[in-house]
């Protein structure tokens, strides 16, 4: 794949690819995402109604309830989780959901942390992939 490559810090290792869903406003998975479908259901969130399933989810950090890790784990079980999660700031709660998914189901979306300047460059809708070493590639 040609295009830009960015180096992220691996929080939970894995590989995934999909179209970028870029959330400028943080999202709580608990109360914010329906694990049955991956749809964003937080009516106060500007991207309510869109789906995180199979997307490279780019957001600054999670917010709200600590149950968000459960919702991510349930999404992994049901196949509605994002393909990868790309954060700007450390978020233990989503990383935890992914780490438990790895322990329990032996699969999880990668969770990576980017420097803010790199994070800002990720364009909505672009095809992107994350590899096990935390390298993020955007189709050019």
């Amino acid at each position, binding site marked *: 794949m040609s295009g830009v490559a960015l*180096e*992220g*810090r*691996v*929080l*939970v290792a894995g590989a995934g690819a999909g179209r970028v869903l870029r959330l400028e406003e*943080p999202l*709580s998975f*608990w*109360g*914010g995402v329906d*694990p049955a479908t991956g749809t964003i*259901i*937080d*009516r*106060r969130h*500007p991207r*309510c109604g869109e789906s995180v399933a199979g997307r490279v989810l780019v957001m*600054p*950090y*999670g*917010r*709200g*309830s*600590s*149950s*968000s*890790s*459960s*919702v991510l*784990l*349930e999404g*992994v*079980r*049901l196949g509605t989780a994002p393909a990868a999660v790309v954060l700007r*700031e*450390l978020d*233990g*709660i989503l*990383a*935890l*959901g992914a*780490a*438990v*998914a790895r*322990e*329990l*189901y032996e699969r999880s979306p990668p969770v990576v*942390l980017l*420097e*803010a300047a790199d994070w800002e460059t990720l364009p909505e809708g672009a095809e992107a992939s994350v590899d096990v070493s935390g390298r993020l590639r955007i189709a050019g």
Partner: protein
Amino acid sequence: MAGLDMRGSVDLTDRDRSMLAGDFGEATAAAMRILVAMAGVYGAERLLDIEGAHIDGCLYHGDSGVDFAELLVAGGARVRVPTTLNVGGLDLLHPNEFAGTAERRAKALRLMECYEEMGCRTIWTCAPYQTTPRPAFGQQVAWAESNAIVFANSVLGARTHRYGDFIDICAAIAGRAPAVGLHLEENRCGQVVFDLRSLPPSLRSASWLLPAIGYLVGERCGNRIPVLLGLEDADEDGLKALGAAAASSGAVALFHAVGITPEAPTLEAALGSHDPARGGGKAEEWIEVTAADLRVALRRLSTVADVAPPTGEAAAQAPPGSRRPARPGADPASANGRARDLAIDVVALGSPHFSPREFRDLLPLVRRHPPAESVEFVVCTNRLSLDFLERSGELSRLRALGVRVVVDTCVVVAPILRTPAGGVLMTNSGKFAHYAPGNVGFDVVFGSLAECVRSAQAGRLWRDPELWP
């Protein structure tokens, strides 16, 4: 933010290694694998001993949570420190208070049993700090449940990082937690000052507004540590409501209220400026909170258009999509902001769980203004408050008036409400107001306790002219 090169390995003790190697059983080894992985995520250099835990993982969100608990139980898991349980998916004392399927009930029950089998105390409440012996100032604990975390850190001065499901039980099983974040004194300095001093005293001392202040703080400070300056003396129920709202709209795990919370005797102390080694001393941001800000937060707490700002100021300040009529015929915002013709289907109180003191406020109101038959009136609480109601004879009186009292669980996390989704739910809880639309599909109206009770009596939104002149 710290650089990306902080992925050092975690320095483990011999005992940590022994637990990892399986010498304490397979469940302890699995718990340690997750703890060490998360210590790496957080960039922790080591693990530390904890003296207590509060577990959020006992609430059924789906089969994966049961799979995880069963994995631990099968591996012989027992908690090593005193551990309490958050709400579950069922009211175990009142089995009829459940509107879900038999299958869901069975799974929610099995999950609760798994955590009991691991040796946790079955208090089933999101307000453990009002029921059981509380962590002492400075004590290291591992708590989950966002409102409990913020209360433990802020009001008690205990030290917990912002934990979620799964790592909470792992910490309890191992008696260890990553030495990181809010466990460490240097990370507990305030960062953003919310200066409330220019608000009229009537707004600063209005307990019903504390969730709105918390909501505003959470939205504006994100995951930084807020310092509230000029908050009038708030009691523990008020701080609980404020913290729960802040932890809903933002990732707030600790706030300082100058003159009120234990790490904030002064602004300087809250910012850490008495000790340069703590790296604090200066606020990153200073936010003057105005009455207009508070009105915006109030509007954000409701999803229906009927809550006009008291001054009738620009509706344009509301974010897109946050204000719309609940149903055809609902009156959009009008100039004077008075109660209008909005049907209320449900009144839900008790997030976090109602304390005996909150019931003392509710009882005379609801006796004077009993709910209409058309309105479902539910209060979520814990068994300690239930005992108080039973001993005082109030429980049967409340029930006779049509008030449902639900324990062990909560209406936004489990199928408890009998009213079909799609209606309007009124609450005095910032946390309910935040989560009810997404979780249970109701529009919400936020109001004071008296407004909730009077609205339930009328079956329509009632606004207190004193509060909404």
